[in-house]
């Protein structure tokens, strides 16, 4: 140690070479988030006759590290909607605080003018678009499930650019590649939603979660599932993917420490 306080607590120059002070630079362009840090993977959702089912696993990854294994990525809003978040977890927590304060504000109204899922989705897409326009995006892809003003099941997505998209079944992240084809096969376009029961929808979601657990390296076998019907919202957290079979893994060749 020497008598220059500025060097205290830093690696010694004579041992490690001179400190790269470019990390401490305070000038230059201001950079907002360039990539997410702690992330959640896919959220998947399906509309059925009289409601919507939505699911997401309980993992928050730090890069490829499975950092937090009990993060609930489905958020219930009032008695009207469930929001599922993928992408940056800290931005999810920020949006969660926005929704919390909005919920409190809404409940001051004595007349029962509750925001429905559609209103909530419009609001969230505006928030996301505003932030992307400031070049400081909230790094999330969001699914909103619930009912619209006509009491019809509602499911729609909004991403970090403020792009919105709606379909009878939706998935974010890796699920957009892996779950959507499965859901399209199970519930083809020509099959009316009235034919899909709640049980069908839940079974399909569980099947998709299992495939994602098999093939998405940032996923977990613990998940949360919410079902929204006119009777209310049922949320099951800390669910476990059941009946796993890794037999198929034997047949996978072409990477890893294989000698064949």
């Amino acid at each position, binding site marked *: 140690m020497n008598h220059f306080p500025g060097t205290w607590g830093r690696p010694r120059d004579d041992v490690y070479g001179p400190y790269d002070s470019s990390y401490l630079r305070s000038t230059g362009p201001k950079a907002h988030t360039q990539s997410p840090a702690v992330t959640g993977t896919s959220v998947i959702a399906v509309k059925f006759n009289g409601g919507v089912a939505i699911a997401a696993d309980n993992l928050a990854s730090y890069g490829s590290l499975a950092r937090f294994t009990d993060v609930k990525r489905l958020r219930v809003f009032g008695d009207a909607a469930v929001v599922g978040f993928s992408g940056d977890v800290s931005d999810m927590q920020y949006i969660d605080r926005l929704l919390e304060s909005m919920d409190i504000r809404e409940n001051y*109204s*004595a007349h029962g*003018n*509750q925001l429905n899922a*559609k*209103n909530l989705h419009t*609001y969230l897409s*505006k928030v996301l678009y505003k932030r992307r326009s400031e070049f400081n995006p909230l790094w999330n892809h969001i699914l909103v499930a619930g009912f619209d003003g006509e009491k019809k099941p509602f499911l729609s997505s909004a991403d970090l650019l403020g792009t919105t998209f709606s379909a009878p079944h939706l998935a974010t992240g890796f699920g957009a590649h892996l779950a959507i084809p499965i859901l399209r096969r199970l519930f083809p376009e020509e099959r009316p939603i009235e034919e899909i029961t709640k049980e069908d929808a839940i079974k399909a979601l569980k099947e998709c979660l299992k495939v994602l657990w098999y093939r998405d390296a940032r996923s977990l076998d613990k998940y949360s599932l919410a079902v929204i019907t006119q009777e209310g919202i049922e949320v099951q957290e800390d669910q476990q993917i059941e009946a796993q079979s890794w037999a198929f893994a034997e047949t996978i060749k072409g990477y890893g420490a294989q000698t064949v």
Partner: protein
Amino acid sequence: MFRNNYDNDAVTFSPQGRIFQVEYAQEAVKQGSVVVGLVNKTHAVLVGLKRNAEELSSYQKKIIEVDSHMGIAIAGLASDARVLSNYMKQQCLGSRMTYGRAMPVDRIVTQIADRAQTNTQQYGKRPYGVGLLVAGVDEAGPHLFEFQPSGMTQEMVACAIGARSQMARTYLERNLDQLNDSSRDELITHGLRALKETLSQDKELTVDNTSVGVVGLKHETGKVESFKLYEGQQLLPLLEALERSDVGETKEGETMEVDS
């Protein structure tokens, strides 16, 4: 010159606990021509008596559409009312933009009340010199609110403010039990009769000096029936209905006399 020492600004209490500037502002409401508002189960109606400053001028507007589900009737300084109605219009558009939802009536009334209250507590400001009747529909049905320069608001089933409004209130109180079960057209007629009560001997309701605003829920569908302003020739059927109801009443009395 001054009525007392405590009316120089709106922030000073008199020793009796009164704020004279606010009371003077309420006098301005009493100088304005009368407006009447009433609600039944499905509709809210505003009726106003328009004044022209001189024979050659046009009549001052009394009822303003704020949004497709809401309108206001004004008594007092029309220019202050314009400021308030512009603010209300903006807030209603903001609600449709960010939430895709029509502004709940109680919410917007609270907002203008907060603005009006600030004017009674900040040095150098003056209270609004206008009273409003706010009629609108939202998820909780039709509503009528009274707004005063003091920032006080109340939800009403029927109300009248402005010059000689006591006569209208007396009529409304006397017919209160008929209002709730009346039809849309009967409610308008009740409003016009209340307005007629306030007229001095030499005046009558004409297509030029009367203004009617109606908003409500459609009987069959329960959907919003957009705010409709009746002025000029459009008033003819409404005024004829008023005349018929008047004749009906006097006739009834006459026949009874003749028969006995």
